[in-house]
């Protein structure tokens, strides 16, 4: 009797009604609008692309320097530079629409009404599959982070976006809150289809010779391997607190970190800073997850998601 090979594991997941061929996305701000990396990372292989944060009007972002490497991470204060929602649709959607990749648009505003307007404008735009609601950028003085660190404000933003779009919406949470479960529950109650975490951790670097902050914005957000264990704990707590899917973000630079998020209860992951070091890292992570599932005789993502053994 010949032995038949086991069928390849099915990596597909469904996030708020949006079916992804695998659970690996690239994170907002680290993959531009896809066109920048398409030569070396075929977009159609990704679970989804989350594009750079979009606001109602164009935004110039912060002064430079905007980015500094630290051991195990990056501290950035780009300041959400973007061409505005109309510029984004005109400049980038024609390219993205031709690629067989789900497009998640990260949106942000300085006022709740701006989030609502951007959401309304993107509703029905061909090729836009979901909205990631950024309520956690540490680099915008008003708005952004303010919404992500106050429960009532976080819920209000999500409710306003919900009322203005039929697209799946996934708020992106800040890590520096005292009770992540409460935030996850608040946005779930406000109508979120999924919840993504974490954004970068507020951070600061000083040049001791000049005694000046290295970043023009004084402070920024820490990302990369340095924040990964922090993110795993927060994802674990959020996943236990809500029914909607959780998306794990923070320091994924290979299959192992992605698997940690999935085992902790995330239904999908995003790769951020690691794209800069290896533009093809997402492909490696997807392959590594499939290898792991084969080794552990898992046939679908259901076998993997939330499979943590806690004594």
């Amino acid at each position: 009797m010949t032995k038949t090979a086991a069928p390849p594991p099915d990596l597909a997941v469904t996030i708020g009604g949006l079916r992804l061929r695998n659970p690996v996305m690239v994170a907002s701000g680290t993959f531009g609008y896809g066109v920048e990396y398409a030569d070396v990372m075929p977009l159609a292989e990704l679970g989804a692309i989350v594009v750079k944060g979009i606001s109602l009007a164009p935004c110039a972002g912060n002064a430079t320097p905007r980015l500094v490497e630290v051991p195990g991470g990056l501290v950035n204060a780009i300041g959400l530079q973007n061409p505005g929602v109309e510029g984004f649709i005109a400049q980038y959607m024609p390219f993205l629409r031709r690629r067989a990749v789900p497009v998640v648009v990260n949106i942000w505003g300085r006022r709740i009404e701006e989030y609502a307007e951007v959401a309304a404008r993107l509703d029905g735009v061909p090729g836009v599959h979901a909205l990631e609601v950024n309520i956690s950028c540490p680099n915008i003085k008003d708005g952004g982070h303010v919404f992500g660190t106050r429960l009532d404000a976080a819920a209000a933003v999500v409710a306003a976006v919900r009322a203005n779009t039929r697209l799946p919406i996934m708020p992106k949470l800040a890590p520096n809150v005292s009770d992540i479960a409460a935030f996850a529950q608040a946005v779930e109650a406000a109508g979120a289809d999924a919840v993504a975490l974490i954004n970068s951790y507020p951070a600061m670097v000083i040049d001791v010779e000049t005694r000046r902050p290295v970043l023009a914005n004084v402070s920024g957000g820490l990302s990369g391997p340095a924040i990964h264990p922090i993110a795993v704990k927060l994802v674990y707590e959020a996943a236990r607190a809500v029914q909607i899917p959780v998306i794990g973000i923070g320091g994924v630079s290979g299959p192992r970190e992605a698997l940690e998020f999935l085992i902790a209860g995330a239904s999908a992951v995003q790769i951020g800073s690691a794209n800069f070091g290896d533009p093809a890292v997402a492909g490696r992570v997807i392959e590594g997850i499939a290898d792991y599932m084969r080794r552990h005789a898992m046939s679908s993502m259901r076998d993997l998601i939330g499979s943590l053994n806690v004594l």
Partner: protein
Amino acid sequence: MQLETSTVMEHELAGGDYRLLTLASQRIADAVLPGQFVSLGLAAPADAILRRPFSVCDAGAGRLTILYKPVGRGTRAMLALRAGDSLSLLGPLGHGFPMPPSDAAQPPLLPVLVAGGYGVAPLYLLARRYPRRGLLFVGGATGRDILMTSAFAALGWEVHVATEDGSLGEHGRVTTPLDTWLAACEVDAKHDFFACGPTGLLHAVAQRAAAGGQRAWVSLDRHMGCGVGACLACVQRLNNDGEKVWGRVCKDGPVFDAARIVWE
């Protein structure tokens, strides 16, 4: 833009603390144009997140050379690279110097290259490929910062050197011999400037070009994140028909028309 695994072929001293690193590259070396750069994905330091960008100094026949000085964590770790080591190579990246078509009816204007220290790197590839020989003005803090002048001379280019400590060439900045030469030019002489070096040097070249009604192309050196235009870390203010806009040094540059730069 391509991503490939490359092998170290040679790693040698270039004078002073500077090193020339030559890599075997199947596809990128033959595609790179003068002024473009590549980024290296290094195995060390292990906790580094970013690739390291370098102007291409020479390229062709499946080989690509960069010139670097060990100044930071990445470049100091690169000192350990040996022939046969492999590393990740991404490129060609960015937009380089405009090159006149080789079949043009009129010869191009006289090319005048101005470099500070290892700013000679992208200018060497330009000199190798430019359809007309010209002049190189190169400055540095000391004679140990003056690199590759014999290589330019071997191509038939006229080389002028200045050092701030006077240890090699004229005493002073690179603008000292440049200004002497400009003063001796015919009033209506036309030439094109190509410059790479510290911002002060680039600004000085831009001012001289503007004063003389000449064109200048400058290669900016900025701390980069992704190197491909995605992260928006290395932006530069540009004039765009009277409006100030951000240009991405890695993607829209690193070479810009000096008249477009907002000097701050």
